[in-house]
């Protein structure tokens, strides 16, 4: 009987390595994976207020700012709307 186990293991190892390299490269290049870095604005005046940014930083692409959330802005907006 022919022995297939070692061959299958080697083929699996090659497929996994190539799959990981190609998959991660695509993920990083499209900014899907951990090219996203979260930054938070330091707010010395208040502990609760913060500004958060999610930035995608692919090596061959432009920096993309995903989201900007400001709890202060939201609260100011609420105050303005309530005054009106």
């Amino acid at each position: 009987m022919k022995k297939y186990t070692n061959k299958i293991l080697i083929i699996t190892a090659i497929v996994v390595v190539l799959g990981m390299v190609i998959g991660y490269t695509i993920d990083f290049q499209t900014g899907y994976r951990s090219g996203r870095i979260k930054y938070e604005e330091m707010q010395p005046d208040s502990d609760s207020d913060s500004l958060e940014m999610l930035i995608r930083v692919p090596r061959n692409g432009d920096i993309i700012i995903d989201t900007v959330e400001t709890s202060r802005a939201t609260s100011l907006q609420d105050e303005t709307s309530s005054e009106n």
Partner: protein
Amino acid sequence: MNINNIIKLVKAYFYENWQKDIYSFGLVFVLAFLSTAVGIFDSVILYGGMVALIAIYPLRYFDKLYQSSSRIHYLMIPATNEEKVLTGIILTNIYFISLIFISAILGVLLGCGVLKLTTPEMTINCKEMISRMLPSTVRSYMVIIMVVSVIFFGAIYFRKSPAWKIVLVSLAVFLVLGAIMAGTEWLNVVMTVPAEIRNGNYVRVEHSISENWEWSPYVTLCVITLYFYAMSFLRMRETEA
């Protein structure tokens, strides 16, 4: 595949190994009891002990394969390799894992009962204790079954000192996969902070991985488990040949 052969293999296993299994269940029971009632051990130690016993189990099950005389005897047992491997899978995944967890739950319940008797002034919730002492997510159990499948394959694949070889090969695989991940990230991601952020009043709070497909860990675990069990069937057939 003949069910009678599988039943005979299970009976033969119990005839030879019932004492060792009782020691294992007893150890987990005592660990769980002491962790709960006396608080000597952390739940991590209990969990670690349980996982270690479960991980050793396939090696114990296939210990006949490691000496040439007993290997020939085991391979000559009138049952096909599929029946032998299937018996191993049933005993490992259903019988042993279930009884290890039942022993742990009984140990925690006994410890909880002792605590209730000795300190009646305290309100103790046994159900909450069980969920605190034991893993409660489906993914945890799937990871255990996946690890067992890898060790199961290693137990059949390596004929001499399989435990060390499984540990060393697993470490090597983790190192290679880690190197690939780190290398690909290094090649593809700018590690420096963009100027507009560096000059501003910002702190980096986390290096987040974006949301993945919800079912991907479960599918991955299932695929790895099935792969190693299929390879175990194949390797056992080769050993028999």
